[in-house]
């Protein structure tokens, strides 16, 4: 029996459910020397902003047990250069593209949505409202149901057409289902769970925080149980909303765990830093596991851990 390994998110079709994670695949070019981008379900771009952005000062990274902290701060070329260079190149490769956007204000999200609404060759829009590396924690839209909904509403009103909107949420909240319900009510078609968790490392030699910005986002296998929990809770609360799961996935087994919790697609992020072909490894291993466990369709495995055994 051949496994149907395809997946869909709010009408957007993908031949397999394994994606890159935003901010972990460069412009796509860097990974394309290790494998063809068409072998992925989709390339999720770095979160693009209106203007060019230098990102934060170094040191921006600290390795932690089974994880790492980063405070890159959304370094990128801005939407103009992105649309001029990155998107046409990805399209030429035949890659399926999910564009991730990030703003500093509700208006930024509206502007970015307008810039992207008529761009051909995009499968979906990831709205990153949860980057922890901003000047002011109060600016993390996804930490508050009202601001989270405002950002998504701005995108919904300006995107037009049928481009699915996927809201990327932070696990650093008291009740992630409350935020999820709020952004879905505001027009999000799907959810990306989870962004990094805010953390800190102090260098015991210098006796100062290791990162120049003191705090950074924790990623890698260390946060996987948090991702599994968040996906499980949100899938239970909103069973019909598709979830792109991410958080410490480095193997097919890890991806399968997030799928069982309720993820309809999986992004591989930090694992790519340790292994450029991690995305392909996860894809192949997950396909094998789904087949071995007797699923005829990948979608049958989504949320399978929620079943009640009689």
């Amino acid at each position, binding site marked *: 029996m051949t496994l149907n390994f395809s997946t869909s998110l709010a009408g957007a079709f993908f031949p397999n459910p394994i994606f890159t994670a935003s901010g972990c695949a460069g412009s796509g*070019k860097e*990974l394309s020397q*290790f494998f063809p981008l068409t072998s992925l379900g989709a390339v999720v771009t770095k979160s693009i902003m209106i203007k060019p952005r*230098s990102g*934060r*000062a*170094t040191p921006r990274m600290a390795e932690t047990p089974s994880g790492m902290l980063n405070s*890159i701060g959304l370094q990128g070329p801005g939407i103009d250069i992105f649309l001029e260079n990155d998107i046409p190149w990805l399209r030429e490769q035949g890659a399926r593209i999910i564009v991730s956007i990030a703003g500093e204000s509700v208006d930024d999200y509206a502007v970015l949505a307008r810039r992207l609404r008529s761009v051909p060759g995009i499968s979906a829009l990831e709205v990153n409202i949860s980057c922890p590396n901003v000047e002011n924690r109060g600016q993390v839209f996804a930490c508050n149901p009202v601001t989270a909904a405002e950002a998504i509403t701005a995108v919904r009103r300006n995107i037009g057409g049928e481009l699915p909107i996927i809201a990327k949420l932070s696990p650093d909240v008291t009740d992630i289902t409350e935020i999820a319900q709020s952004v879905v009510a505001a027009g999000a078609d799907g959810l990306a769970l989870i962004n990094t968790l805010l953390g800190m490392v102090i260098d015991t030699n210098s006796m100062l925080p290791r990162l120049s910005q003191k705090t950074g986002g924790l990623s890698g296998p260390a946060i996987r149980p948090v991702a599994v929990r968040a996906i499980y809770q949100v899938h239970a609360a909103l069973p019909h909303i598709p979830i792109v799961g991410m958080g410490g996935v480095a193997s097919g087994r890890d991806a399968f765990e997030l799928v069982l919790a309720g993820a309809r697609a999986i992004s591989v992020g930090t694992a790519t830093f340790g292994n450029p072909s991690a995305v392909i490894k996860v894809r192949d291993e997950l396909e094998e596991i789904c087949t071995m466990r007797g699923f005829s369709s990948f979608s049958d495995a989504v949320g399978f851990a929620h079943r009640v055994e009689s």
Partner: protein
Amino acid sequence: MNSRATQISAEVLSNKRVGSYNHMVFAVDGLAAHCKPGNFVAISVGGPTSSMILRRAFAIYRATMRSDGIGLLELVVAPMGSGSKWLASQQPGDFVDLIAPLGTAFGIPKDPVNALLIGGGYGSAPLFALAETLKQRGCRVDMVLGASTAGKIYAPLEGKRSVNSLTITTDDGSAGTTGRVSDVLPELIKEHEVDVIYSCGPMAMLEAITKISQTFGVVHQCSVEESMACGIGVCMTCVLPVEGDDGLIRMTRTCIDGPVMDGNKVLWTHSREIPDGVWGK
């Protein structure tokens, strides 16, 4: 981006302690033919169940093709942190996951020049293969190696033979001149009528060399050392403010637009802040 970058499982062929360092040789098939002085490798550490998830970057000491077609890659490993200690504990017959070659290489002049090669600590590693290449082009090659103490100078015997002169400095005076490489630099530039400086070592040393090279109007190619997470250009961790050909100063990835950079184009800063004038600040 180094278009030759390939991920392989490489067998450890030998591992010998030299002073404070380990000299390690790996079998890398035809990859060795594409490795140039200045390129680096990124190696997974700790084994498959390790909690160390990021690769460690090492400058290539030497890469050669044996007559039987087997490529050899040599590294100088300083067992400082838990990752490099793990690598230095690997024995002949063990295999490591390795990506090579990565990054930019030292530019080699078309015509013979007077070159001065400067290495700090294990930063001397890529300079010996560079010295051989420059000698083959008819260059005069002088070398300065500095470290905190004698045991941290990496200067193998065969390396000494490939240079016209070797000057050693140590902070504690346990070998050569007491002081830093920058202390002896002005005299050496004048004495050997240096045209090009090649350097590799700690960032503070590279900055000091840049200031001196600017005073003398000497070209300075340096191999920088910023901590990296991926080594292949996707993590945006290893950035430095660098002026591009278009005059814009960008936070530039040292893994794919480096590690070898024009010292005069780097905005050396220790402020832990993005300097003014950087694009997108």
